[in-house]
């Protein structure tokens, strides 16, 4: 086992990062805040996968790489594997974590998923304010997955669906 720190440290940094971007720097531009948070995640995923794949052969196909994310990569980050992986065999993969660690401490309204929350800002109610705040917390792990996969030579888009809390599904769409 490598070096460790208390989980509260990473929780604290992520909460403050999301809050600084959403409430202080880009309070009126949630889509910009989202892009920055995603970019930070991308950077982290890109660097982490580099470290975890140093001593292994190249992945022969997309599915093998995605399986690595589900098992080894997720275990390094969350001490558990992704619980369920689905694919349509045409470049879309759904990675479901039945109890996603980073959402267990955030209070949430699950009525919107991440893509809807970022586009629909016309009707501001307390409910979709809460959903927007939650979706902001999901841009970071989405960025991590995208960064990791793109470093493995798989350009993709990643979104998250939290309609079945506390489960969280990450939807990976590989770019053709």
């Amino acid at each position, binding site marked *: 086992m490598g070096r*460790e720190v*208390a989980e509260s*440290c*990473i929780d604290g*940094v992520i909460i403050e990062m999301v809050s600084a971007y959403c409430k202080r720097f880009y309070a009126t531009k949630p889509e910009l805040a989202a892009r*920055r948070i995603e970019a*930070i995640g991308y950077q982290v995923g890109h*660097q982490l996968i580099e470290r975890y794949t140093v001593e292994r052969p190249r992945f022969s196909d997309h599915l093998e790489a995605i399986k690595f994310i589900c098992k080894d990569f997720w275990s*390094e980050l969350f001490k558990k594997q992704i619980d369920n992986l689905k694919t349509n065999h045409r470049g879309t993969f759904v990675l479901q974590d039945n109890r996603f660690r980073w959402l267990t401490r955030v209070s949430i309204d699950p009525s919107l998923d991440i893509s809807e929350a970022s586009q629909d800002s016309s009707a501001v109610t307390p409910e979709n304010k809460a959903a927007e705040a939650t979706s902001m917390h999901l841009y970071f792990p989405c960025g991590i997955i995208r960064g990791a996969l793109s470093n493995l030579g798989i350009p993709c888009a990643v979104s998250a669906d939290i309609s079945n809390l506390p489960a969280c599904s990450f939807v990976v769409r590989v770019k053709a």
Partner: protein
Amino acid sequence: MAPLAPKTGDAVFASVDRVNAELFTLTYGAMVRQLLTDLEEVDEVNKQLDQMGYNIGVRLIDEFLAKSNVSRCVDFKETADVIAKVGFKMFLGITASVTSWDAEGTSFSLVLEDNPLVDFVELPDTCQGLHYCNILSGVLRGALEMVSMKTEVTWVRDMLHGDDAYELRVKLLKQVPEEYPYKDDE
């Protein structure tokens, strides 16, 4: 009577939920990098890191008091030792040494030789004014304020700027008397 407070935080650190330090280090690094891009001014980045740290410290003190078994410190000297031996250990898995007390006993230095925030970090020349670990000083300030101590926390030495250790100076500005906002019979 011997103090009941633990002398080190080893046992507490062993009992809290922990994560891979690389994830923490790289997340912090990626965030600082993005802040430098978005805020442009190094001074503004220092300020924001301090603010984030303060907000974290304000919350972290609760967890610290709940899990560490530390009781009320009799004086600022004991506070310093508890921060160095229990606080740093419980959260970052490292210990700090307390040095350089002033004559009045109101300011001291915390010296870190090991610091998980800076693994893999090198600063480019354009970041000379950056206090990369400024979040730490904010955490201390925020946490101490919640236990009635107004402090000023500044960086004296920084290995990223070529010093031989990390040194934080903690100065007690004011001990705020506790006020109870509630009545006895409620």
